[in-house]
């Protein structure tokens, strides 16, 4: 291993114009080669150029994951469409449907009380599924995943970085949704167990949606992934118990809709946050099964290029 470049040796600057003709790497005239650099003339008198001598080494895994997650996070926050999907739409739906009687949620529950758990489920779906599927699909198409495969960051490290990014975005979404919901009058009615059970449901939902996102992004073309992820988002927004109560659907449809990941997550969160349920076992098992199945298939079928 060599030390880094010594500070007194200024780095060589090659502007777009390049070096003056007939000069060696450090401005040393190269005699007798008529512009052709023969192997023997390549040596730089007085030593090696600074900073390029081999000194390989992989950074610690945690630093690599943090670097990758921070780049992904900044990319997401700079992307207008992704912000619309993950922050603007959930907050807009929460306030609009809470403040205006657009949908009749039935008696015994204020609109914001019904909506808040559903909007949290929507936020989880938008980040872990839609946003992640689209971003990963295009990363695959642009060869970003292939190129990362040649760096010291392992695939497990890349997945850890993506998971960290999703969770960080969800925390941001959660904070904003809870803040807005409380301001417009949300009154949760939760058992003490909710402090553990609600995050558990969100975590399982995140795992299920991430598995589905990677299954989609890893098998379809980027454009097909984009279309499918948006279509599924709209469909599950409609039939996932997010803003329209599942009780409004025909009685025969309701158990089926509750078996969808969005329905399971929104119903489970609503039970825990509004109905004082300690542990919605059915919804939890549904999410667990989705998570295991989706991640298993994604792991088997994901194509990196």
């Amino acid at each position, binding site marked *: 291993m060599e030390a880094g470049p010594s500070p007194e040796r200024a780095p060589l600057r090659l502007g777009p114009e390049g070096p003056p003709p007939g000069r060696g790497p450090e401005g040393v005239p190269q005699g007798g080669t008529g512009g052709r650099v023969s192997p023997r003339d390549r040596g730089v008198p007085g030593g090696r150029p600074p900073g390029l001598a081999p000194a390989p080494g992989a950074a610690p895994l945690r630093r690599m994951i943090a670097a990758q997650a921070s780049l992904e996070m900044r*990319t997401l926050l*700079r992307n207008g469409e992704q912000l619309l999907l993950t922050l603007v739409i959930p907050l807009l739906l929460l306030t609009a449907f809470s403040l205006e009687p657009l949908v009749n949620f039935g008696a015994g529950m204020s609109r914001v009380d019904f909506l808040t758990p559903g909007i949290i489920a929507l936020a989880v779906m938008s980040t872990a599924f839609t946003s992640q599927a689209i971003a990963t699909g295009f990363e695959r198409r642009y060869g970003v995943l292939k190129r990362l495969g040649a*760096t*010291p960051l392992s695939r497990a490290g890349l997945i850890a970085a993506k998971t960290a990014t999703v969770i960080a975005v969800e925390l941001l979404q959660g904070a904003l949704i809870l803040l807005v919901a409380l301001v417009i009058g949300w009154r949760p009615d939760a058992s003490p167990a909710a402090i553990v059970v609600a995050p558990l449901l969100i975590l399982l939902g995140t795992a299920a949606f991430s598995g589905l996102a990677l299954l989609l992004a890893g098998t379809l073309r980027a454009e097909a992934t984009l279309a499918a992820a948006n279509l599924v988002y709209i469909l599950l927004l409609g039939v996932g118990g997010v803003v329209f109560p599942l009780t409004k659907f025909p009685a025969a449809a309701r158990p089926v809709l509750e078996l969808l990941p969005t329905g399971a997550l929104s119903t489970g969160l609503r039970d825990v946050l509004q109905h004082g349920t300690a542990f919605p076992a059915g919804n939890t098992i549904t999410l667990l099964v989705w998570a295991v199945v989706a991640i298993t298939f994604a792991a088997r079928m994901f194509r990196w290029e």
Partner: protein
Amino acid sequence: MSTAPHTPANPAAPAVEIGGLVKRYGQLAAVDGLTLTAARGAVTGILGPNGAGKTTTIEICEGYRRPDHGTVRVLGLDPVRDARALRPRVGVMLQSGGIPPSVPAADYLNLLSRFHTHPVPVPQMLALVGLTAVARTPYKRLSGGLQQRLSLAAAVIGRPELVFLDEPTAGMDPQARHATWELITQLRTAGVSIILTTHFMEEAERLCDYVAIIDHGELVAGGTPAQLTGTAGQLRFHAEAGLDLDSLLAALPPASVAKESPAGHYLIEVHGHVDPMLLAAVTAWCAQRDVLATSLSIESRTLEDVFLDLTGKDLRP
């Protein structure tokens, strides 16, 4: 702090050692029994027409594909099995893409620099490839040549022992190409082993210590540029059309070649250099027939001549 490789590495192993490599895609053999050794600390060029198997070979060395037959060793290690040990030591420049479109140049280099223990500092790396002025520009808004330079910077920022450059100067203007040649020369001087593919014969002649010409997945010629171009000397002259080439050849050393194309333009190729005896033999033969040879010139072949001779002039798909 550096991570020790998991497989004991042989510091004397060649940069790349390929033996009897075969890679098929369905019926088509993209690489068909290729054997090739790239020395440490040297610039090795892989030349070949489109579809010759260059990129497949490089991607096998990079661990992206597994060979069907044969062995590949990179720095003495197996590119797939020992990928973990190799990745920090090997820099990769893909033929295209690989960089997220919306990420600014500096951010991408910063990311890669944080994957390594002793990276080239990002500002210095940007300056080395002439990207300082566009450091905050997203990749997708850079011109093709600037994108290539960022890709090259990404390959070398981790201070690798070996870099694979797949067509490093494709799409660059002459200024950028010369600056890139300078950087590759500097890397070599710094002790980095370099494997590059190229379509530019001038690039290979200038940069490469060793050139491997491959076609249909096989090595068709290998050597230093001087060895490859020096194996045949050429003598050209103009004279009246329709000279008796058989008679001329009889006066020349065996294994010489004489052609008339177009009419009145004569080309004689010999193995090795054109020497005074050959020149005398040609002019004496002409004098006996009262033929005045004009515009007589003695040339060595360019790498492009050699390349076209070996791989033919047919257009490749």
